[in-house]
């Protein structure tokens, strides 16, 4: 791995990573693919997020859907774990809660394949500092 020796290096790396997102780089997920993000903090895992993640990875592959599945930390919605965020290409991310196998199946069939939103979306209810 190349070392970052100054601010210019850091900037260059950041730009490279950002262009990877636009194209199909492998470091960070590309914008052209469906992106499924699963909250995987200790509490999420205790609520079954690992099973949900495995199920999603397997089923997306079985159903021939080109998607990137990644893990993330706590989204803050403890009452609704496991929580999953789905970003369809060109769309705003959508967060679903209580994602067991049944709900995960619905997410794939209805939302990912057909763009039909499911009941019980968890909207972003906080301000972000970077936009």
């Amino acid at each position: 791995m190349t070392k970052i020796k100054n601010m210019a290096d850091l900037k260059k790396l950041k730009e490279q990573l950002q262009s990877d997102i636009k194209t199909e780089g492998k470091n960070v997920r590309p914008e052209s693919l469906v992106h499924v993000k699963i909250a995987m903090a200790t509490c999420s895992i205790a609520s079954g997020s690992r099973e949900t993640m495995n199920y999603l990875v397997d089923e997306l592959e079985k159903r021939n859907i080109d998607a990137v599945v990644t893990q993330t930390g706590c989204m803050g919605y403890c009452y609704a774990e496991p929580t999953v965020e789905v970003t369809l290409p060109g769309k705003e991310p959508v967060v679903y809660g209580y994602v067991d196998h049944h709900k995960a199946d619905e997410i794939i069939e209805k939302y990912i394949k057909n763009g039909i939103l499911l009941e019980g979306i968890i909207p972003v209810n906080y301000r972000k500092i970077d936009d």
Partner: protein
Amino acid sequence: MSEYRIHLLVCGGTGCLSQSSHAVAESLIHEIKQQGLSDIAQVVSTGCFGLCEHGPVVKIIPDNTYYTHVKAEDAVEIVEEHVVKGRKVQRLLFKDPKTDKIITEPGELEAYKKQIRIALRNCGVVNPENIDEYIVRRGYEALGKVLAEMDPHQTIDIIKKSGLRGRGGGGFSTGLKWELTAINEADRKYVVCNADEGDPGAFMDRSILEGDPHSVIEAMAICGYCTGAGEGLVYIRAEYPLAIERLKTAIKQARNYGLLGKNIFGSDFSFDIDLRYGAGAFVCGEETALIHSMEGKRGEPTMKPPFPSVAGYLGKPTTVNNVETFANVPPIILNGHEWFSSIGTEKSKGTKVFALAGKVNNVGLIEVPMGITLREVIFEIGGGIKGGKKFKAVQTGGPSGGCLTEKHLDIPIDYDNLIAAGSMMGSGGMIVMDEDDCMVDMAKFFLEFTVDESCGKCAPCRIGNKRLFELLEKITKGNGVPEDIDRLVNLGNVIKDTSLCGLGQSSPNPVISMIRNFPDEYKAHVTDKKCPSGVCKALMVYEIIPENCVGCTACARACPVGAITGERKEVHTIDTSLCIKCGACMDRCKFNAVIVK
């Protein structure tokens, strides 16, 4: 893909539901069907948008229009105008309550949301095991900026001016803490991250370390640069294996990029981080005890001074900051102290992360600006009390804090106001209690924890807390006398005044504040031998009301100890000397004949 080209999101959060948002959803669905648009428009109910005061809220995507205060009869206009003609319904657009200005940009509307995420900015956003995702979100820019453009003194000045105070609960100025270490000359200095999160019900620090470990690493390096330390140590409890794994991965990745190690960013500043594991002792959250534990000694506190900034780890100047405190540092460097200090109250700047737990609907991890009220936190963000029960109290500051009641719901939350109200900020645990919680039992719960966690070094804490606990146990068993209440308060105050460290100095807080706020409940326990919330079993008596009993024998069959007798079709009775107060008879009786006194 479906033909849906428009989605109507109707808020189904507690606040909006109470203002009939379900009727709004129904009429939207009805209207869409009427107009023959069911194939292109979809109505979905969602969770809370965080705009509760302006509910019911309807959000339309893809154009991100928010309609507020929507009524069922507005559905016709929304569908005809917006869905069919693509024209926004001006009169329903969000209006600033103060200026009456219509807010159309979704970005501007963000400012009206209750929560703001600074320390949690990357949690649930980035993959914590991929440093690249952190870098894309301006990761390590703050460290680079500090090393390239600022000297330690200037950096400390920014942190001081930002008004950032210790998020572990103490509330000491972070910038000043750094300065106190910086001014001490020594061959070695240390930065310690206190990740010994021990309050029952608190999980803010774990969530940050599991969700965004790099922000803590970056901030520790900045702190090292400012204070002149070359080594950082994270003191983390071994019960947090996932946080430990993610931290290790993150440290390795940072080293690979040269963001930890020698000559960071080509400067002459070198810094590296190592982990130290704690065995999960509550007292080790206290900084002197934490340092002893890191040195391999018993986790016991010592008198301050000397402060760790003078003689800390291995006798060297050491800065100890909490995880959440560190997580606030990079955004302050990047956005400036003016930005940070514009959030919050006069003396408490920025935000605070709370682990909202207990009897609220939306148990969760929240980050709110200082100055928000408990009412907003519990009833809007938290979605109110579970099962429609009545709010009774909220415990802030964990076993060291106090309980706050109905009358405190509207005070702005900050360090000083919470202390004035008889509680404290603490590290951010917030346990909500409802009418079914008994305040004597709760006080006993917190004291049981402190008795267990007291290190035993000083007598007031070791012996005093045990005696407090025994008094409470006596009261919950029905053997209390009225004088016990004064005893609790007096002994509690002695423990607070004479204990060596923060643990003992604060451990009587829950019981003292509960006696202050719920004197009648304590009196009922000791004088009437009754537990008004029906929690203390020893004080409960099950009885059968003869007028309601039909002699169906259901209760007698349900009783596991054979305490209920009576002939079929005749009134039954409970032998209270045999009754174990399990409540099975009450659950089984269909005629409301069994009561608890």
